[in-house]
């Protein structure tokens, strides 16, 4: 178990190192920030001074080493645009994105698994068929269109939910702001959470359904029924556990994409999260913010993958036995 864990952590560190290399190379390939920051009128001396201040005059290897050391301490330098520490900018925006992502992930996972089980067990009912057909819409419509449609129906026509922003927030601790404790915050969360989670919901649902149908046709399910176990035990204990093994991986990866794809939803709903921050950063070639965002998303994926591997370990006894050596 320990060997398995150490191996996976080493892999994770390697992945982060590679992403750091890519993030770092941004500094050299996305234009010259000094020109952007100082404009046309600056003198050569001004530019050299700024280069020195930003550390851009040093050899590439030294710059990269500094970048990695700083990144390991969550230190990404100063934003070219707002001249504030990037870490502060991200921390300021992170709670909004995380709350949105977590709520839509819960929405997608709970509804996705539930509907997946339902459509697998009641395969022939009209409601299951309707859900399956409707889910095609969820898979095929682009996220921004769903967001715009929801805004049109619930905010413009019906006027029951806010169309943009995060509502009122409450400060918790040093830097965390939450919208979960106010009525307007919760109301503001509904549309973006649905928009962000809908694609994942349909994906999870269709996956659970397909896996469950496959598991239900296996010999051990037939034997479980032949042993006289109740339908409930067969479906929800035996079949569901086997269904979840492949589903866990996909859910894990999808949680990562929820955070990554929050960019689009945040733009549509003017949600003050890191996604919106990243879009602004791209527009202004604010490389430190872009690099930090890239590293953050990579970290999210790596951590989720690690958790998925450990979950596998917990669920599947076949891995536990060979686990250490594998």
């Amino acid at each position, binding site marked *: 178990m320990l060997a398995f864990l150490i191996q996976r952590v080493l892999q994770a560190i390697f992945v982060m190192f590679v992403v750091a290399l890519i993030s770092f190379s941004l500094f050299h390939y996305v234009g010259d920030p000094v020109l952007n920051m100082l404009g046309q009128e600056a003198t050569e001396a001004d530019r050299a001074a700024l280069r020195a201040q930003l550390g851009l005059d040093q050899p590439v290897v030294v710059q990269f080493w500094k970048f990695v050391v700083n990144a390991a301490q969550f230190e990404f330098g100063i934003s070219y645009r707002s001249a504030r520490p990037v870490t502060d900018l991200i921390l300021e925006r992170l709670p909004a994105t995380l709350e949105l992502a977590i709520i839509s992930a819960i929405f997608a996972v709970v509804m996705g698994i539930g509907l997946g089980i339902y459509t697998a067990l009641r395969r022939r009912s009209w409601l299951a068929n309707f859900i399956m057909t409707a889910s095609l819409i969820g898979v095929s419509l682009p996220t921004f269109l769903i967001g715009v449609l929801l805004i049109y129906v619930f905010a413009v026509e019906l006027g029951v939910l806010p169309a943009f922003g995060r509502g009122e927030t409450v400060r918790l601790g040093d830097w965390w702001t939450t919208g979960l404790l106010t009525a307007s915050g919760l109301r503001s969360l509904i549309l973006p959470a649905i928009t962000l989670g809908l694609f994942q919901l349909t994906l999870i649902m269709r996956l659970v359904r397909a896996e469950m149908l496959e598991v239900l046709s296996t010999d051990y399910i037939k034997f479980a029924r032949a*042993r006289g*176990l109740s339908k409930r035990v067969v479906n929800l204990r035996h079949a569901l556990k086997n269904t979840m093994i492949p589903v866990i991986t996909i859910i894990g990866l999808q949680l990562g994409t929820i955070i990554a794809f929050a960019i689009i939803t945040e733009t549509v709903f003017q949600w003050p999260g890191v996604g919106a921050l990243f879009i602004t950063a791209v527009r202004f070639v604010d490389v430190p913010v872009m690099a930090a965002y890239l590293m953050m998303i990579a970290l999210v994926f790596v951590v989720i993958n690690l958790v998925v591997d450990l979950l596998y370990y917990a669920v599947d006894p076949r891995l536990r036995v060979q686990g250490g050596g594998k």
Partner: protein
Amino acid sequence: MSSTPSSVNQSAGIGHEPTAAAQEPVLSVRHLRVEFPTRHGTLVALDDVSFDIAPGEVLGVVGESGAGKSMTGNAVIRLLELPGRIAAGEVHLSGKRIDDLPEEQFVPLRGRHIGMIFQDPLTSLNPLFSIGDQLVETIRAHLPMSEREAREEALRLLREVGIPAPESRLDSYPHQFSGGMRQRVVIALALAARPEFIIADEPTTALDVSVQAQILALLKRLCADHGTAVMLVTHDMGVIAETADRVAVMYAGRLIEIGPVDEVVRNPQHPYTKGLMASIPGIARRLERLYQIEGAMPRLAAIPPGCAFNPRCPHAQQRCRDERPDLMPAGGSRAACWLHDPVDPLPPRLDLEGQEVSHVR
């Protein structure tokens, strides 16, 4: 503990055996018909199948792949694959009709009164649950036992099926057992609630030859001990000859011959059974080439009118192509063949011994 239903049932089964056999069959199947509605019309997978199994009796069911052997077992325990359904006929268990029970009332019968063992022990056990868990849940689904009592019972069952050191294996997972050991676990599971009747669907086909004999002997011994009747589905006549009391031969979804195993093996009455027996290699006979019945079993969509075997039968005559024969007394068994019509038997067209030799090319 001594008054648990398992022990009551067990002793009752043994005590009743000699007399009950004559009185009431544990399983009685009458005119069973199973259909698969498909887009291209309805396939008849089982057609007018009738047979009885006495308490404690082992009935072997043989036939080629697709003859309806496994289908019969699946229909009796009502685990037919969709869209298969019982279209006609009746199934009685210990005198009580069970084919028309609603599903909720049928579920408790499975495992408790009708057990089932499948072909492949490697896939019969859920890989994510320890065998102890699977045993305990099965026992507790049927018998009023606490978790601890059920674990004790599980240990006893594992010991009974010959798993060495069951205490240390109870928390093991299926992948930690060999195929033969897994089939022992499967047998323990199928017998956990002491059913009076079990369906063993090719229980040894997936096993090594060396393990097959052990598993058959185990199954036979346990069922004899508990007075459990067995429907043994197999295509292996050797298994039938060793294990069964009576044998039923199936062809194209129909039962074509049924009788005591010695009679059917030594003195088969239906031309198909004769061909089947002749095609078994023997140590005594030295042949250049094994005998084979010409042609192939018809697909379910294309079963000929009259006797299903008539296109391949050396004795076939006009009547065989027009009218379907029912089971009729024939020698020591009963066969569905007009050669044995008690009123107006068809004359056999050829001497089958000669026919058999002529087939050996």
